[in-house]
Protein backbone atom coordinates (compact mmCIF):
# COMPACT_ATOMS: atom_id res chain seq x y z
CA UNK A 1 0.00 0.00 0.00
CA UNK A 2 2.96 2.26 0.45
CA UNK A 3 3.14 3.02 -3.23
CA UNK A 4 -0.57 3.74 -3.47
CA UNK A 5 -0.25 7.31 -2.36
CA UNK A 6 2.18 8.52 -5.03
CA UNK A 7 -0.11 6.84 -7.50
CA UNK A 8 -3.04 8.79 -6.25
CA UNK A 9 -0.98 11.96 -6.37
CA UNK A 10 -0.11 11.14 -9.90
CA UNK A 11 -3.79 10.62 -10.51
CA UNK A 12 -4.54 14.23 -9.72
CA UNK A 13 -1.73 15.38 -11.91
CA UNK A 14 -2.83 13.08 -14.65
CA UNK A 15 -6.34 14.39 -14.45
CA UNK A 16 -4.92 17.87 -14.86
CA UNK A 17 -2.90 16.65 -17.81
CA UNK A 18 -6.03 15.21 -19.31
CA UNK A 19 -7.83 18.50 -18.95
CA UNK A 20 -4.93 20.68 -19.98
CA UNK A 21 -5.51 20.50 -23.73
CA UNK A 22 -9.09 21.61 -23.37
CA UNK A 23 -8.06 24.19 -20.83
CA UNK A 24 -5.50 25.63 -23.22
CA UNK A 25 -7.98 25.65 -26.07
CA UNK A 26 -10.68 27.24 -24.01
CA UNK A 27 -9.55 30.89 -24.05
CA UNK A 28 -9.69 30.87 -27.83
CA UNK A 29 -12.98 29.04 -27.77
CA UNK A 30 -14.44 31.50 -25.32
CA UNK A 31 -13.16 34.45 -27.33
CA UNK A 32 -14.49 33.05 -30.57
CA UNK A 33 -17.80 31.98 -29.09
CA UNK A 34 -18.36 35.36 -27.54
CA UNK A 35 -16.82 37.70 -30.07
CA UNK A 36 -17.91 35.84 -33.16
CA UNK A 37 -20.95 33.74 -32.49
CA UNK A 38 -22.31 35.77 -29.61
CA UNK A 39 -21.96 38.88 -31.68
CA UNK A 40 -23.57 37.24 -34.67
CA UNK A 41 -26.51 36.30 -32.47
CA UNK A 42 -26.71 39.80 -31.06
CA UNK A 43 -26.59 41.43 -34.48
CA UNK A 44 -29.17 38.98 -35.77
CA UNK A 45 -31.46 39.88 -32.92
CA UNK A 46 -30.93 43.59 -33.54
CA UNK A 47 -32.04 43.07 -37.13
CA UNK A 48 -35.45 42.13 -35.77
CA UNK A 49 -35.57 44.98 -33.30
CA UNK A 50 -36.55 48.60 -33.34
CA UNK A 51 -32.97 49.83 -32.94
CA UNK A 52 -32.09 53.23 -34.29
CA UNK A 53 -29.33 55.33 -32.81
CA UNK A 54 -29.01 52.98 -29.85
CA UNK A 55 -29.88 49.32 -29.52
CA UNK A 56 -33.49 48.89 -28.60
CA UNK A 57 -34.64 45.39 -27.84
CA UNK A 58 -38.25 45.85 -28.89
CA UNK A 59 -39.13 43.06 -31.27
CA UNK A 60 -40.50 44.33 -34.55
CA UNK A 61 -40.33 41.17 -36.60
CA UNK A 62 -39.33 41.59 -40.21
CA UNK A 63 -39.87 45.31 -40.22
CA UNK A 64 -36.18 46.24 -40.64
CA UNK A 65 -35.74 43.53 -43.23
CA UNK A 66 -38.60 44.82 -45.33
CA UNK A 67 -37.18 48.31 -45.05
CA UNK A 68 -33.83 46.98 -46.15
CA UNK A 69 -35.29 45.30 -49.18
CA UNK A 70 -37.31 48.30 -50.20
CA UNK A 71 -34.32 50.58 -49.70
CA UNK A 72 -33.14 52.14 -52.85
CA UNK A 73 -29.47 52.31 -51.84
CA UNK A 74 -29.50 48.66 -50.85
CA UNK A 75 -30.62 47.88 -54.38
CA UNK A 76 -27.65 49.80 -55.72
CA UNK A 77 -25.33 48.12 -53.26
CA UNK A 78 -26.55 44.68 -54.26
CA UNK A 79 -26.32 45.48 -57.93
CA UNK A 80 -22.80 46.78 -57.44
CA UNK A 81 -21.59 43.78 -55.50
CA UNK A 82 -22.92 41.54 -58.25
CA UNK A 83 -21.16 43.46 -60.97
CA UNK A 84 -18.04 43.92 -58.91
CA UNK A 85 -17.92 40.40 -57.54
CA UNK A 86 -18.47 38.71 -60.86
CA UNK A 87 -15.97 40.81 -62.80
CA UNK A 88 -13.47 40.62 -59.97
CA UNK A 89 -13.59 36.88 -59.60
CA UNK A 90 -13.58 36.12 -63.32
CA UNK A 91 -10.80 38.59 -64.14
CA UNK A 92 -8.62 37.48 -61.25
CA UNK A 93 -8.96 33.85 -62.17
CA UNK A 94 -8.39 34.33 -65.89
CA UNK A 95 -5.44 36.65 -65.42
CA UNK A 96 -4.03 34.65 -62.54
CA UNK A 97 -4.20 31.44 -64.51
CA UNK A 98 -2.58 32.99 -67.56
CA UNK A 99 0.24 34.44 -65.50
CA UNK A 100 0.73 31.16 -63.68
CA UNK A 101 0.92 29.21 -66.93
CA UNK A 102 3.34 31.71 -68.42
CA UNK A 103 5.50 31.64 -65.33
CA UNK A 104 5.47 27.88 -65.34
CA UNK A 105 7.48 27.76 -68.61
CA UNK A 106 10.82 27.61 -66.83
CA UNK A 107 11.17 31.36 -66.81
CA UNK A 108 14.59 32.71 -65.96
CA UNK A 109 13.64 35.43 -63.49
CA UNK A 110 10.64 33.67 -62.06
CA UNK A 111 11.34 34.64 -58.47
CA UNK A 112 11.56 38.34 -59.29
CA UNK A 113 8.48 38.32 -61.50
CA UNK A 114 6.48 36.39 -58.94
CA UNK A 115 7.42 38.92 -56.31
CA UNK A 116 6.35 41.75 -58.57
CA UNK A 117 2.97 40.18 -59.29
CA UNK A 118 2.37 39.39 -55.69
CA UNK A 119 3.52 42.52 -53.89
CA UNK A 120 0.17 44.39 -54.14
CA UNK A 121 -1.24 41.76 -51.80
CA UNK A 122 1.12 42.98 -49.09
CA UNK A 123 -0.15 46.53 -49.28
CA UNK A 124 -3.20 48.01 -47.69
CA UNK A 125 -5.81 49.26 -50.04
CA UNK A 126 -5.79 52.47 -48.15
CA UNK A 127 -2.24 52.82 -49.46
CA UNK A 128 -2.74 51.64 -53.00
CA UNK A 129 -6.15 53.28 -53.24
CA UNK A 130 -4.34 56.55 -52.78
CA UNK A 131 -2.21 55.77 -55.78
CA UNK A 132 -5.04 54.43 -57.90
CA UNK A 133 -7.31 57.31 -57.10
CA UNK A 134 -4.67 59.64 -58.35
CA UNK A 135 -3.67 57.48 -61.25
CA UNK A 136 -7.25 57.37 -62.54
CA UNK A 137 -8.10 60.97 -61.75
CA UNK A 138 -8.89 62.51 -65.12
CA UNK A 139 -7.38 65.89 -64.28
CA UNK A 140 -4.06 64.51 -63.08
CA UNK A 141 -3.38 60.91 -63.84
CA UNK A 142 -3.46 58.66 -66.82
CA UNK A 143 -5.67 60.92 -68.92
CA UNK A 144 -3.50 63.94 -68.39
CA UNK A 145 -0.37 61.90 -69.02
CA UNK A 146 -1.75 60.69 -72.32
CA UNK A 147 -2.72 64.21 -73.26
CA UNK A 148 0.77 65.38 -72.39
CA UNK A 149 2.19 62.68 -74.55
CA UNK A 150 0.16 64.02 -77.41
CA UNK A 151 -2.82 61.71 -77.40
CA UNK A 152 -5.35 64.47 -77.05
CA UNK A 153 -8.45 62.42 -77.68
CA UNK A 154 -7.62 59.95 -74.91
CA UNK A 155 -10.33 59.93 -72.33
CA UNK A 156 -10.56 57.94 -69.17
CA UNK A 157 -12.93 59.47 -66.68
CA UNK A 158 -14.53 56.41 -65.20
CA UNK A 159 -13.64 57.42 -61.68
CA UNK A 160 -16.03 60.36 -61.77
CA UNK A 161 -18.64 58.79 -64.01
CA UNK A 162 -21.27 57.21 -61.84
CA UNK A 163 -21.99 54.54 -64.43
CA UNK A 164 -18.38 53.50 -64.74
CA UNK A 165 -16.87 54.16 -61.33
CA UNK A 166 -17.48 50.63 -60.13
CA UNK A 167 -15.24 49.37 -62.94
CA UNK A 168 -12.33 51.41 -61.70
CA UNK A 169 -12.74 49.65 -58.40
CA UNK A 170 -12.66 46.36 -60.26
CA UNK A 171 -9.42 47.33 -61.99
CA UNK A 172 -7.71 48.17 -58.73
CA UNK A 173 -9.08 45.12 -56.96
CA UNK A 174 -7.97 42.81 -59.74
CA UNK A 175 -4.55 44.40 -59.70
CA UNK A 176 -4.28 43.65 -56.03
CA UNK A 177 -5.48 40.07 -55.97
CA UNK A 178 -4.26 38.58 -59.25
CA UNK A 179 -0.86 37.80 -57.87
CA UNK A 180 -2.40 35.81 -55.10
CA UNK A 181 -4.54 33.80 -57.49
CA UNK A 182 -1.50 33.31 -59.68
CA UNK A 183 0.40 31.92 -56.73
CA UNK A 184 -2.39 29.48 -56.01
CA UNK A 185 -2.46 28.28 -59.60
CA UNK A 186 1.30 28.09 -59.75
CA UNK A 187 1.34 25.83 -56.73
CA UNK A 188 -1.40 23.77 -58.34
CA UNK A 189 0.55 23.47 -61.59
CA UNK A 190 3.68 22.40 -59.75
CA UNK A 191 1.67 19.74 -58.00
CA UNK A 192 0.58 18.05 -61.19
CA UNK A 193 2.16 14.71 -61.97
CA UNK A 194 4.83 15.34 -64.60
CA UNK A 195 4.63 11.83 -66.00
CA UNK A 196 1.12 12.42 -67.17
CA UNK A 197 2.25 15.41 -69.18
CA UNK A 198 5.13 13.39 -70.61
CA UNK A 199 2.64 10.72 -71.60
CA UNK A 200 0.51 13.32 -73.35
CA UNK A 201 3.56 14.72 -75.13
CA UNK A 202 4.47 11.25 -76.32
CA UNK A 203 0.92 10.91 -77.57
CA UNK A 204 1.67 13.98 -79.67
CA UNK A 205 -0.67 16.49 -78.04
CA UNK A 206 0.24 20.14 -78.69
CA UNK A 207 1.02 22.27 -75.64
CA UNK A 208 -2.24 24.20 -75.60
CA UNK A 209 -4.20 20.99 -75.78
CA UNK A 210 -2.26 19.52 -72.91
CA UNK A 211 -3.20 22.56 -70.86
CA UNK A 212 -6.81 22.65 -71.95
CA UNK A 213 -7.54 18.95 -71.70
CA UNK A 214 -5.21 17.62 -69.06
CA UNK A 215 -3.70 20.27 -66.82
CA UNK A 216 -6.46 22.82 -66.29
CA UNK A 217 -9.14 20.24 -65.51
CA UNK A 218 -6.86 18.95 -62.79
CA UNK A 219 -6.70 22.38 -61.19
CA UNK A 220 -10.34 22.12 -60.20
CA UNK A 221 -9.64 22.28 -56.47
CA UNK A 222 -7.58 25.43 -56.99
CA UNK A 223 -10.44 27.00 -58.94
CA UNK A 224 -12.77 26.17 -56.11
CA UNK A 225 -10.46 27.62 -53.48
CA UNK A 226 -9.85 30.71 -55.57
CA UNK A 227 -13.55 31.33 -56.09
CA UNK A 228 -14.28 30.92 -52.40
CA UNK A 229 -11.45 33.17 -51.29
CA UNK A 230 -12.17 35.83 -53.91
CA UNK A 231 -15.91 35.77 -53.31
CA UNK A 232 -15.47 36.35 -49.63
CA UNK A 233 -12.91 39.07 -50.26
CA UNK A 234 -15.36 40.72 -52.64
CA UNK A 235 -18.21 40.69 -50.17
CA UNK A 236 -15.98 42.00 -47.41
CA UNK A 237 -14.45 44.71 -49.59
CA UNK A 238 -14.62 47.92 -47.69
CA UNK A 239 -11.36 49.84 -47.58
CA UNK A 240 -10.99 49.41 -51.29
CA UNK A 241 -14.22 51.30 -51.95
CA UNK A 242 -13.52 53.84 -49.25
CA UNK A 243 -10.05 54.58 -50.56
CA UNK A 244 -11.02 54.73 -54.20
CA UNK A 245 -14.40 56.36 -54.42
CA UNK A 246 -15.86 56.67 -50.95
CA UNK A 247 -18.92 54.97 -52.37
CA UNK A 248 -19.42 57.79 -54.85
CA UNK A 249 -20.02 59.55 -57.05
CA UNK A 250 -23.27 59.82 -55.17
CA UNK A 251 -24.01 56.24 -54.26
CA UNK A 252 -22.70 54.83 -57.48
CA UNK A 253 -20.14 52.55 -55.89
CA UNK A 254 -21.94 51.68 -52.68
CA UNK A 255 -21.61 48.01 -51.78
CA UNK A 256 -23.15 46.11 -48.87
CA UNK A 257 -20.06 46.65 -46.73
CA UNK A 258 -20.17 50.43 -47.06
CA UNK A 259 -23.95 50.42 -46.87
CA UNK A 260 -23.81 48.70 -43.52
CA UNK A 261 -21.17 51.04 -42.16
CA UNK A 262 -23.12 54.08 -43.21
CA UNK A 263 -26.43 52.89 -41.80
CA UNK A 264 -24.84 51.80 -38.55
CA UNK A 265 -22.69 54.78 -37.80
CA UNK A 266 -24.05 57.79 -39.60
CA UNK A 267 -27.70 57.17 -40.26
CA UNK A 268 -28.74 55.96 -36.84
CA UNK A 269 -30.41 52.97 -38.45
CA UNK A 270 -28.90 50.15 -36.46
CA UNK A 271 -31.75 47.82 -37.29
CA UNK A 272 -31.29 48.07 -41.04
CA UNK A 273 -27.52 47.97 -40.65
CA UNK A 274 -27.82 44.76 -38.67
CA UNK A 275 -30.14 43.24 -41.25
CA UNK A 276 -27.70 44.05 -44.04
CA UNK A 277 -24.82 42.58 -42.05
CA UNK A 278 -26.77 39.41 -41.39
CA UNK A 279 -27.56 39.18 -45.08
CA UNK A 280 -23.88 39.47 -45.96
CA UNK A 281 -23.05 36.79 -43.45
CA UNK A 282 -25.72 34.52 -44.88
CA UNK A 283 -24.30 34.85 -48.40
CA UNK A 284 -20.78 34.16 -47.22
CA UNK A 285 -21.92 31.28 -45.04
CA UNK A 286 -23.71 29.72 -47.99
CA UNK A 287 -20.40 29.79 -49.84
CA UNK A 288 -17.99 28.96 -47.09
CA UNK A 289 -19.72 26.33 -45.00
CA UNK A 290 -20.00 23.71 -47.75
CA UNK A 291 -16.40 24.47 -48.66
CA UNK A 292 -15.13 24.13 -45.11
CA UNK A 293 -17.23 21.04 -44.66
CA UNK A 294 -15.67 19.34 -47.64
CA UNK A 295 -12.19 20.49 -46.67
CA UNK A 296 -12.48 19.27 -43.13
CA UNK A 297 -14.08 15.94 -43.74
CA UNK A 298 -11.73 14.87 -46.51
CA UNK A 299 -8.74 13.96 -44.34
CA UNK A 300 -10.85 11.35 -42.61
CA UNK A 301 -11.05 9.14 -45.67
Amino acid sequence: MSNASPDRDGGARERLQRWLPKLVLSPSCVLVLFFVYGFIAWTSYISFSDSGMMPDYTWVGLHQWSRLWTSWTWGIALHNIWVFGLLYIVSCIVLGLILAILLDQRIRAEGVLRTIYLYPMALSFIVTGTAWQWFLNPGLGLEKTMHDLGWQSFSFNWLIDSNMAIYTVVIAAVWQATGFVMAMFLAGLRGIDGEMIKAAQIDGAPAWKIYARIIIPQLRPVFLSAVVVLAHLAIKSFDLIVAMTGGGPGNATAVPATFMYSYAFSRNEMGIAAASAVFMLAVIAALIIPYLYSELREPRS
Partner: protein
Amino acid sequence: MSAASPAARRGAATRVVLYAILLVFAVIYLMPLYVMLTTSFKTLEEIHQGNMLALPGEWTLAPWREAWGSACIGLECNGVHGYFFNSIKIVIPAVLISGLLGAFNGYVLTKWKFRGHKIVFGLILFSCFIPFQIILLPMARVLGILHLANSTGGLVLVHIVYGIGFTTLFFRNFYASFPDELVRAAQLDGAGFFTIFFRILLPASVPIIVVTIIWQFTNVWNDFLFGVSFASGDSAPITVALNNLVNSSTGVKAYNVNMAAAMVAAVPTLIVYILAGKYFLRGLMSGSVKG
Protein backbone atom coordinates in the same frame (compact mmCIF):
# COMPACT_ATOMS: atom_id res chain seq x y z
CA MET B 1 23.08 25.53 -85.52
CA SER B 2 19.91 25.71 -83.51
CA ALA B 3 18.98 28.73 -85.60
CA ALA B 4 19.02 26.51 -88.59
CA SER B 5 16.04 24.48 -87.46
CA PRO B 6 12.71 26.20 -88.12
CA ALA B 7 11.16 24.50 -85.11
CA ALA B 8 13.86 25.86 -82.85
CA ARG B 9 13.47 29.29 -84.39
CA ARG B 10 9.76 29.15 -83.71
CA GLY B 11 10.57 28.04 -80.18
CA ALA B 12 12.90 30.99 -79.70
CA ALA B 13 10.27 33.35 -81.04
CA THR B 14 7.74 31.94 -78.60
CA ARG B 15 10.16 32.54 -75.76
CA VAL B 16 10.59 36.15 -76.79
CA VAL B 17 6.83 36.67 -76.87
CA LEU B 18 6.52 34.93 -73.53
CA TYR B 19 9.07 37.16 -71.86
CA ALA B 20 7.55 40.22 -73.48
CA ILE B 21 4.11 39.44 -72.07
CA LEU B 22 5.48 38.77 -68.62
CA LEU B 23 7.46 41.97 -68.73
CA VAL B 24 4.47 44.05 -69.77
CA PHE B 25 2.52 42.65 -66.87
CA ALA B 26 5.39 43.36 -64.53
CA VAL B 27 5.45 46.97 -65.68
CA ILE B 28 1.69 47.29 -65.15
CA TYR B 29 1.96 45.80 -61.70
CA LEU B 30 4.80 48.05 -60.70
CA MET B 31 3.23 51.19 -62.10
CA PRO B 32 1.27 52.31 -59.05
CA LEU B 33 4.23 51.76 -56.76
CA TYR B 34 6.47 53.60 -59.18
CA VAL B 35 4.08 56.52 -59.41
CA MET B 36 3.76 56.67 -55.64
CA LEU B 37 7.49 56.62 -55.14
CA THR B 38 8.42 59.17 -57.77
CA THR B 39 5.59 61.48 -56.85
CA SER B 40 6.68 61.46 -53.23
CA PHE B 41 10.01 62.94 -54.28
CA LYS B 42 8.60 65.64 -56.52
CA THR B 43 7.66 69.19 -55.72
CA LEU B 44 3.99 70.10 -56.01
CA GLU B 45 4.81 72.38 -58.88
CA GLU B 46 6.41 69.60 -60.82
CA ILE B 47 3.44 67.34 -60.15
CA HIS B 48 1.04 69.83 -61.62
CA GLN B 49 3.19 70.63 -64.62
CA GLY B 50 5.14 67.53 -65.29
CA ASN B 51 4.35 64.08 -66.40
CA MET B 52 3.10 61.57 -63.89
CA LEU B 53 5.45 58.92 -65.24
CA ALA B 54 8.54 61.09 -65.36
CA LEU B 55 11.24 60.81 -62.76
CA PRO B 56 11.49 63.80 -60.47
CA GLY B 57 13.37 66.61 -62.14
CA GLU B 58 14.54 67.75 -58.79
CA TRP B 59 14.54 65.23 -55.99
CA THR B 60 13.20 66.53 -52.73
CA LEU B 61 12.80 64.92 -49.38
CA ALA B 62 10.50 67.65 -48.17
CA PRO B 63 7.28 65.69 -48.78
CA TRP B 64 8.60 62.82 -46.71
CA ARG B 65 9.64 65.13 -43.91
CA GLU B 66 6.27 66.79 -44.01
CA ALA B 67 4.34 63.53 -44.12
CA TRP B 68 6.33 62.21 -41.20
CA GLY B 69 6.39 65.23 -38.99
CA SER B 70 4.21 68.13 -39.96
CA ALA B 71 1.38 67.26 -42.30
CA CYS B 72 -2.08 68.06 -41.00
CA ILE B 73 -4.28 65.12 -40.23
CA GLY B 74 -7.62 66.42 -39.32
CA LEU B 75 -6.60 69.39 -37.29
CA GLU B 76 -3.35 68.29 -35.82
CA CYS B 77 -0.30 69.04 -37.83
CA ASN B 78 2.18 66.52 -36.53
CA GLY B 79 2.40 64.22 -39.50
CA VAL B 80 1.84 60.51 -39.43
CA HIS B 81 4.66 59.48 -37.14
CA GLY B 82 2.44 59.23 -34.08
CA TYR B 83 0.03 57.00 -35.92
CA PHE B 84 2.88 54.95 -37.28
CA PHE B 85 3.89 54.15 -33.72
CA ASN B 86 0.26 53.47 -32.85
CA SER B 87 0.26 50.80 -35.51
CA ILE B 88 3.45 49.36 -34.08
CA LYS B 89 1.93 49.37 -30.61
CA ILE B 90 -1.04 47.48 -32.01
CA VAL B 91 0.73 45.10 -34.30
CA ILE B 92 3.33 43.69 -31.93
CA PRO B 93 1.09 42.42 -29.12
CA ALA B 94 -1.67 41.46 -31.52
CA VAL B 95 0.64 39.33 -33.64
CA LEU B 96 2.40 37.72 -30.70
CA ILE B 97 -0.70 36.86 -28.73
CA SER B 98 -2.82 35.68 -31.63
CA GLY B 99 0.15 33.68 -32.87
CA LEU B 100 0.65 32.00 -29.50
CA LEU B 101 -3.03 31.21 -29.16
CA GLY B 102 -3.06 29.86 -32.70
CA ALA B 103 -0.05 27.69 -31.97
CA PHE B 104 -1.69 26.26 -28.86
CA ASN B 105 -4.92 25.68 -30.73
CA GLY B 106 -3.16 23.99 -33.61
CA TYR B 107 -1.28 21.81 -31.12
CA VAL B 108 -4.39 20.77 -29.24
CA LEU B 109 -6.49 20.29 -32.35
CA THR B 110 -3.98 17.99 -33.99
CA LYS B 111 -2.21 16.25 -31.15
CA TRP B 112 -4.80 16.15 -28.38
CA LYS B 113 -7.86 15.46 -30.40
CA PHE B 114 -11.06 15.07 -28.51
CA ARG B 115 -14.58 14.30 -29.50
CA GLY B 116 -15.86 17.20 -31.57
CA HIS B 117 -12.43 18.65 -32.31
CA LYS B 118 -13.38 19.11 -35.93
CA ILE B 119 -16.44 21.10 -35.01
CA VAL B 120 -14.36 23.32 -32.76
CA PHE B 121 -11.85 23.85 -35.54
CA GLY B 122 -14.62 24.52 -38.02
CA LEU B 123 -16.13 27.10 -35.70
CA ILE B 124 -12.79 28.82 -35.19
CA LEU B 125 -11.95 28.67 -38.88
CA PHE B 126 -15.28 30.11 -39.92
CA SER B 127 -14.42 33.25 -38.01
CA CYS B 128 -11.83 34.01 -40.72
CA PHE B 129 -14.53 34.38 -43.26
CA ILE B 130 -17.28 36.29 -41.53
CA PRO B 131 -17.95 39.74 -42.92
CA PHE B 132 -16.69 41.88 -40.11
CA GLN B 133 -19.66 44.18 -40.49
CA ILE B 134 -21.62 41.71 -38.46
CA ILE B 135 -19.53 42.30 -35.38
CA LEU B 136 -19.00 46.04 -35.65
CA LEU B 137 -22.02 47.10 -33.62
CA PRO B 138 -21.65 44.78 -30.65
CA MET B 139 -17.88 45.21 -30.67
CA ALA B 140 -18.20 48.95 -30.38
CA ARG B 141 -20.39 48.45 -27.35
CA VAL B 142 -18.23 45.82 -25.73
CA LEU B 143 -15.11 47.92 -26.18
CA GLY B 144 -16.96 50.79 -24.55
CA ILE B 145 -17.94 48.65 -21.61
CA LEU B 146 -14.36 47.40 -21.26
CA HIS B 147 -13.13 51.01 -21.40
CA LEU B 148 -11.11 50.10 -24.44
CA ALA B 149 -12.96 52.24 -26.93
CA ASN B 150 -10.66 54.51 -28.88
CA SER B 151 -7.53 52.99 -27.59
CA THR B 152 -4.82 50.93 -29.16
CA GLY B 153 -5.56 48.32 -26.49
CA GLY B 154 -9.03 47.87 -27.92
CA LEU B 155 -7.63 47.30 -31.38
CA VAL B 156 -5.15 44.78 -30.02
CA LEU B 157 -8.05 42.82 -28.55
CA VAL B 158 -10.01 43.01 -31.79
CA HIS B 159 -7.08 41.85 -33.88
CA ILE B 160 -6.32 39.01 -31.52
CA VAL B 161 -9.89 37.77 -31.58
CA TYR B 162 -10.26 37.90 -35.32
CA GLY B 163 -6.73 36.70 -35.99
CA ILE B 164 -7.15 33.46 -34.08
CA GLY B 165 -8.89 31.83 -37.03
CA PHE B 166 -5.95 32.24 -39.37
CA THR B 167 -3.23 31.50 -36.86
CA THR B 168 -5.06 28.36 -35.77
CA LEU B 169 -5.43 27.30 -39.39
CA PHE B 170 -1.72 27.76 -40.06
CA PHE B 171 -0.53 25.90 -37.01
CA ARG B 172 -3.10 23.18 -37.32
CA ASN B 173 -2.16 22.46 -40.91
CA PHE B 174 1.49 22.53 -39.96
CA TYR B 175 1.19 20.29 -36.93
CA ALA B 176 -1.09 17.91 -38.80
CA SER B 177 1.99 16.94 -40.80
CA PHE B 178 3.84 16.02 -37.60
CA PRO B 179 3.37 12.35 -36.74
CA ASP B 180 1.16 11.84 -33.71
CA GLU B 181 3.73 9.33 -32.57
CA LEU B 182 6.03 12.20 -31.69
CA VAL B 183 3.68 13.21 -28.94
CA ARG B 184 3.17 9.62 -27.86
CA ALA B 185 6.89 9.03 -27.71
CA ALA B 186 7.32 12.13 -25.61
CA GLN B 187 4.53 11.06 -23.31
CA LEU B 188 6.24 7.73 -22.78
CA ASP B 189 9.42 9.63 -22.10
CA GLY B 190 7.52 11.37 -19.34
CA ALA B 191 6.95 14.77 -20.92
CA GLY B 192 3.74 16.61 -20.10
CA PHE B 193 1.48 18.76 -22.22
CA PHE B 194 3.52 21.94 -22.07
CA THR B 195 6.90 20.23 -22.14
CA ILE B 196 5.95 18.49 -25.34
CA PHE B 197 4.80 21.76 -26.86
CA PHE B 198 7.68 23.95 -25.82
CA ARG B 199 10.48 21.40 -26.06
CA ILE B 200 9.47 19.38 -29.08
CA LEU B 201 6.89 21.04 -31.32
CA LEU B 202 7.65 24.71 -30.97
CA PRO B 203 11.38 24.46 -31.73
CA ALA B 204 10.44 22.65 -34.92
CA SER B 205 7.86 25.26 -35.91
CA VAL B 206 10.12 28.03 -37.15
CA PRO B 207 8.79 28.01 -40.73
CA ILE B 208 5.18 28.30 -39.71
CA ILE B 209 5.97 30.87 -37.04
CA VAL B 210 7.53 33.03 -39.71
CA VAL B 211 4.54 32.53 -41.97
CA THR B 212 2.11 33.39 -39.21
CA ILE B 213 3.99 36.47 -38.14
CA ILE B 214 4.18 37.77 -41.68
CA TRP B 215 0.55 37.04 -42.37
CA GLN B 216 -0.72 38.54 -39.17
CA PHE B 217 1.64 41.47 -39.40
CA THR B 218 0.40 42.46 -42.84
CA ASN B 219 -3.21 41.87 -41.90
CA VAL B 220 -3.08 43.91 -38.73
CA TRP B 221 -0.90 46.60 -40.20
CA ASN B 222 -3.13 46.99 -43.25
CA ASP B 223 -6.40 46.87 -41.38
CA PHE B 224 -8.69 49.78 -41.97
CA LEU B 225 -12.21 48.77 -41.01
CA PHE B 226 -11.46 48.03 -37.36
CA GLY B 227 -9.19 51.02 -37.09
CA VAL B 228 -11.76 53.38 -38.46
CA SER B 229 -14.54 51.82 -36.41
CA PHE B 230 -12.91 51.43 -33.04
CA ALA B 231 -10.19 54.02 -32.86
CA SER B 232 -10.04 57.62 -33.77
CA GLY B 233 -8.06 60.64 -32.92
CA ASP B 234 -4.77 59.98 -31.25
CA SER B 235 -5.17 56.23 -31.14
CA ALA B 236 -5.85 55.71 -34.83
CA PRO B 237 -3.58 53.34 -36.73
CA ILE B 238 -1.55 54.53 -39.69
CA THR B 239 -4.06 53.40 -42.31
CA VAL B 240 -6.80 55.52 -40.78
CA ALA B 241 -4.42 58.44 -40.38
CA LEU B 242 -3.32 58.06 -43.99
CA ASN B 243 -6.89 58.09 -45.20
CA ASN B 244 -7.58 61.15 -43.10
CA LEU B 245 -4.45 62.84 -44.34
CA VAL B 246 -5.18 62.12 -47.97
CA ASN B 247 -8.66 63.50 -47.57
CA SER B 248 -7.76 66.46 -45.44
CA SER B 249 -7.37 69.47 -47.57
CA THR B 250 -6.41 73.02 -46.98
CA GLY B 251 -7.20 74.41 -50.38
CA VAL B 252 -4.46 72.54 -52.20
CA LYS B 253 -4.02 68.81 -52.36
CA ALA B 254 -0.43 68.01 -51.54
CA TYR B 255 -0.14 64.88 -53.64
CA ASN B 256 3.54 64.49 -52.95
CA VAL B 257 2.95 64.52 -49.21
CA ASN B 258 0.06 62.08 -49.59
CA MET B 259 2.20 59.69 -51.57
CA ALA B 260 5.05 60.00 -49.10
CA ALA B 261 2.66 59.22 -46.27
CA ALA B 262 1.29 56.28 -48.24
CA MET B 263 4.84 55.03 -48.66
CA VAL B 264 5.45 55.40 -44.94
CA ALA B 265 2.39 53.27 -44.35
CA ALA B 266 3.50 50.75 -46.95
CA VAL B 267 7.17 50.41 -46.07
CA PRO B 268 6.88 47.96 -43.17
CA THR B 269 4.78 45.45 -45.06
CA LEU B 270 6.84 45.92 -48.20
CA ILE B 271 10.05 45.26 -46.31
CA VAL B 272 8.60 42.24 -44.59
CA TYR B 273 7.31 41.00 -47.89
CA ILE B 274 10.50 41.49 -49.85
CA LEU B 275 12.66 40.00 -47.11
CA ALA B 276 10.43 37.01 -46.54
CA GLY B 277 8.47 36.80 -49.75
CA LYS B 278 8.92 33.08 -50.07
CA TYR B 279 7.43 32.48 -46.65
CA PHE B 280 4.70 34.95 -47.40
CA LEU B 281 3.80 32.99 -50.49
CA ARG B 282 3.72 29.83 -48.47
CA GLY B 283 1.52 31.55 -45.92
CA LEU B 284 -0.92 32.57 -48.59
CA MET B 285 -1.02 29.05 -49.84
CA SER B 286 -1.65 27.46 -46.49
CA GLY B 287 -4.30 30.06 -45.84
CA SER B 288 -6.30 29.08 -48.85
CA VAL B 289 -5.32 25.76 -50.22
CA LYS B 290 -5.21 22.82 -47.96
CA GLY B 291 -1.61 22.25 -47.01
